[in-house]
Each structure stands twice: as C-alpha cells, then as structure tokens.
C-alpha cells in the first residue's frame, strides 16, 4: 500500500489480487447476496483509491481495508433496513447459488468420485454449520480464517474487546463442531 500511496500504479493491482478473495468472501458472507457484496467490494476499493494519500504506512493495510469493508457493509445493511442474514444455503453457499456444484469438490480437494460425494456432503454440512452461527460469531470466525488479521485487529474492526473476540471464536468453533457431529461428521 505504501508503494501505491507513493504513486506506483502497479502496486494497486498487487493489492487487488491479494485482497480480492478474502475481502469479497467476507462481504459475501456478511451481506448474504452476491450483487450487494460486489457493490460494496467496489466501493471499498474506490475508497482505498481515494484515501491512498491519507494512508499511514505505520498501520497495516489489511485491517484498514477490512474496517472500510465492514463499515460499508454495515451501512449497506442499514440502508436496506435490515441486518439480513440469509437462509442457510443461499446466504452461505454462493457457489451453489450460482449453480456451480464444483465448489465442494474443490473444497474436498479430491477428484475421486466416492470421496467427491463425501466431500460434497461435508461441504454442505460445513456451509450449513457456518450459516447457523450467530452473525457476530460467524463474522469473527470468517475474519480470522480468511483475512489473516490478528485477534486485536479483529477486535478493533468489530469494535469489541479482544476477549470478546476470543470467546466468540471459541463458541463459533464449538458450535461448528457440534453441528458437524450432528450431520455425522465427527471432527
């Protein structure tokens, strides 16, 4: 980001390639719908572009980016009049919504048909368990797993104490474990 702030145009594309997936995934989970997530995703990077000159290199880029992303997502939900957390499948399984069944195969990482079926089922169970989490717990779990942020940074972004982040994470993992066990997947 410092390079981009200093005027190096190519640095922006590097930033974009590095953070597109984690940010969009977070927004997609948070907002529940691909079109909204895409709008907010673009807004976030537009803000990064606009704010490049005010960027202070002593701050890490990722927390800054995700803070903007979360704020924009919250605004978007407020504008829509609801904290919309979608029904399990639609909200938490964007690929399935797009009619793409390959997602679970990739998740399983195994092309063997039998394993594939199992992988697909595990994928569904995972998506279901994720979607069943309370939004606050899902948010911190997803931020921690996908953004590479520290617990302290997540606390700063979400505006809660670090201990709250830790407890939310622990509850989230325990609920996931219980939900998977219910589906027959003993972790």
């Amino acid at each position, binding site marked *: 980001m410092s390079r981009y702030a200093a005027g190096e*145009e190519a640095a922006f594309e590097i930033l974009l390639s590095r953070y597109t997936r984690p940010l969009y*995934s977070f927004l997609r989970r948070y907002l529940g719908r691909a079109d909204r997530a895409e709008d907010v995703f*673009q807004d976030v990077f537009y803000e990064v572009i606009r704010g490049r000159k005010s960027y202070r290199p002593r701050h890490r880029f990722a927390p800054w980016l995700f803070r903007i992303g979360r704020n924009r997502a919250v605004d978007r939900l407020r504008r829509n009049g609801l904290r919309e957390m979608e029904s399990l499948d639609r909200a938490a399984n964007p690929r399935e919504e797009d009619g793409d069944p390959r*997602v679970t195969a*990739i998740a399983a990482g195994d*092309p063997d048909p039998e394993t594939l079926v199992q992988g697909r089922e595990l*994928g569904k169970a995972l*998506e279901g368990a994720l979607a069943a989490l309370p939004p606050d717990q899902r948010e911190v779990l997803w931020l921690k797993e996908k953004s590479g942020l520290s617990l302290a940074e997540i606390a700063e972004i979400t505006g809660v104490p670090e201990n709250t982040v830790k407890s939310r994470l622990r509850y989230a993992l325990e609920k996931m474990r219980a939900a998977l066990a219910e589906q027959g997947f003993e*972790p």
Partner: protein
Amino acid sequence: MNCRRAEDMFIEYLYGELEPEQAASLRAHLDECPACRTRLAELARVRQLVAQVPDAEPSPMAINRVIAHAREEQERSRSIWGFRWVKVLAPLCVAVVIGGLVAYQFRAGLAPRPIVYAPAKEEQRPAVQEPLPAPEPEKKSSPLTARDAGKLSAPAAPRPAPPRVALREKEERAAPPPAAEHPGVFSADQERLKKPPTAEGERVSIASLPPPPTVETAVREAAAPQSAADSASSRPASPEASPPIRGEAPPAALLSAPQRELGRPAVGTARAPVAAAPPQAKAAAREEAMTSSAAGNKPEASAPSLLNSGDRALEAGRHAEAGEAFSQALKLLLPGHPDRPHALLGLARAQEGQKDRSGALQTYGELAKESPTYRDLAEAKMHELSGPEVK
C-alpha cells in the same frame, strides 16, 4: 494450570498468538490432560475444515471496474498536479524573464526608451551616447569582411542616423558571412569568438556585448505590440545602442512583418535564408507529429472501446459477441500492455459462457502467465475447468 485456564488459551494457541511461555505451560498441561488434548484437537480440525471452505470471488467485471477506476484516478491526479505546477510556474517564469530583462537593460544601458522619449535634457544625452565609441573597435575586429565591417561601422559613427534603406542593405549584406564561418554558432558567440581582447573599460565591454539570444528575442517580443514605426523612430535617437546587435541580425523594427517573422528564429539558429523555414517547418512538423501520433494512437483508442463493448456483451450474456470483441482487443494489445489481463479475462469468461472449455483453459493459462495480478484467479479457474465434474 487447570483445564478452565487451559481452555481460555485454546484460541490464541490455535491461531499462534500465544506468548511462548504461555504456550509452553499450555503444552505442559496438554501432556498431562487427555480431555483438553482431545478438545483442542477437535477445535483444530474444525478450524482446518473452515479454512478449506473456498473463497467466493467477484465477477471479472467488478475487478475490471476497480482497476479502471484506479487508472482514471491516477491519470486525474497526474493531470491535476501537472496543471497546478503549470499554474504556479508559468507566471513565475514570466516574472523572472521580465525581471531579468529589465535588469539587463538597465545594466547594459539598453533601456533607451524612457530616455529617448523624455523631454530633451542635456545631461541625459551623454549618458546615452557614451557607449557610442565602444562598438567601433569591436566592429573592426568582428568576423565580418573588411568591406562589410566598414559598411557596418559607418552608420554607427556619425550622429545623424543613416537612411533606413541603406542600413537595411548593409545589414543584409553583413549577415551571411558569420554564418558561413561558424555555421551553427550563435551570432553573438561568433562575434565573441573573433573579438580581440579590448582595452575598453568595463562599461564599454558590457555595452558592446550582444545580449544573449533569449534576451534579444524577448526584447523584440516585448517590443512587438508597439508599432514598427514606433520602434523605428526610437532607433535613430539612440543608434549607438543597436549596432553591436543589429550588425548580427536585421533590426526587427526595420523589417516588414513577414521579414520580422522570418528573422526572429535566426537569432538563435543559422541565418535568414535558413531561418526562413522554421515557422512553416515547425508547423508542418507539428502537424505531422500530430497526425502520426494520432495514427499511432489509433489502435490504442479502439482497444478500450472493444473492451467496453466486450464487457457490455458479457454482462448481457452475449458470449459470442463478447468473445469476438475481446479477441479483437487482444490483437491490438501487445503482451505487457496493462489492458491485456482485462481482455484475457473477458475472453476466458466469454469462452466459458460458450462452453468452450479448452479455449477458456488456454486463455486462463495465458492470463496466468502474463499477469501476476490475476495468476491466482486464473489458476483457480483452470483448476475448476480441469475438474472432472465439468465433463
């Protein structure tokens, strides 16, 4: 450490954020407590599974829009900065040039106008006339031929100014030789090259030195708004000021407008015959440069429109049309062009839409090779496309 305390540390331990000594004490507890060990292992496994859930990704159009926006902003800020600098520097440059001019004129005694037009005061005359003897020896030692030098020095010496026509003829004749001797050297420099060391005082040498070309040009340009007659009428009153300069180039005021136009570039370049070309040549060159640059830009200009139409077609689900537009754009964009990833992404997406799996694979392969930015994305797509479920 008890189990409750250990559980409090699980999250930080799982994510590697526990202090080394705390991690050591937790490990010690885990060695002794199989229940905590199992619990931690389960959480670790869930964590691993969550990490495997694939990321969602935005459409290439969204990424392209962001990239396009970044470029626009970059361009805009560049042009804004350029404009600001021009706004600041232009008046500054003008002020410096004018200031320099005024200072130079006063130092060299070349600011005759106020004196010339002032009511005749006897004490002013000598001040203006004093530099008069100075040009004389200098002219004799100038690089001109003896004949030309003689002719040139003639009008300077006597008090009444020579008829304009005669002076112009002499100056025209005087003009070519220096150019022939030192082609490409500024006329003023030529005179300096040939000038023997003078025994004259400081004032004389300053007065006799021709001003640098830029100053002379600026003097002429500053005088340009005045009428030619106005300038000419001022000359006879102070002929002593002009000969050292005018011996080099025809006095602007004595030339017709076209001649002035032609004579102006001669100050810093060769001589009048050669100098006659520049304005037209410059205009022609400028025109040529513009047309050639326009011709050169033509493919550049059409590529963005192809990319835009490709994007629109893609959004509308017209994959064949989109593929065609992106293919054409790719022909115009050489490898390394910043818009190529955009075109490759679009083409691959269009090929996917047309169920052209091998084509899409190949295009994503190219994208992965050409653009580090999109390498991840392209490789993930290739992975997807080469998966067995696609069959």
